[in-house]
């Protein structure tokens, strides 16, 4: 069994493996370290559609995702991130669709 997965370890992995310039990771499992949502900003996403971006993330976190119950990501290029920030005065942060108040409900794996 690998080391337990934490917000910090996921953030470090994404920063390192996707050359991410900004990463927000949120544990949405209520503390058991089984579900995470994220906002990832990386120049590697430029010129890729949503599916290709998510596939890059899935590949970078293959081992981690296989061990946890739920995983969400919002993938933006630095330009998209700045644009959204300028337009809304902030950024929505990681996606929370599918959660109840930011926590995952439903079956346990």
């Amino acid at each position, binding site marked *: 069994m690998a080391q337990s997965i934490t917000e910090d370890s996921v953030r470090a992995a994404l920063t390192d493996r996707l050359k991410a310039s900004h990463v927000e990771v949120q544990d949405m499992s209520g503390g058991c370290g089984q579900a995470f949502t994220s906002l990832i900003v990386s120049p590697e996403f430029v010129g890729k559609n*949503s*599916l290709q971006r*998510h*596939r890059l993330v*899935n590949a970078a976190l*293959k081992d981690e*995702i*296989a061990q946890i119950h*739920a*995983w*969400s*990501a*919002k993938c933006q290029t630095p330009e998209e991130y700045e644009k959204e920030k300028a337009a809304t005065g902030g950024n929505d942060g990681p*996606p929370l*669709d*599918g*959660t*109840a108040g930011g926590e*995952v*409900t*439903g*079956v346990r794996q």
Partner: protein
Amino acid sequence: IQARFLSDQTRQAIDKAVSSAPVVLFMKGTPETPQCGFSRASIQVLGMQGVDPAKFAAFNVLEDNELRQGIKEYSDWPTIPQLYIDKEFVGGCDIIVSMHQSGELAKLLEEKKVLA
């Protein structure tokens, strides 16, 4: 590390499932009773878009462990739910929701003529 390979039998079963309707969702639970928030969110989006029930099929991966593991390998996608339109993999919950918000999903569903 032991590599897992999709058996021919499972692959054929998934091929069949994917082509059983123009819009196919692999989910946890059923459309009436989703067993996970991500599957529920995906069903809600397809409902809001007005997908024709006659052109839609859902498969409950909780009832079939081989399907549950097999579909991940088939799509090269690690999580459930998974949406297919015209046998083509579209994405998981995040992609479905973001395409819904951007209007891309409405466009795609209209092009594929799968709306009620």
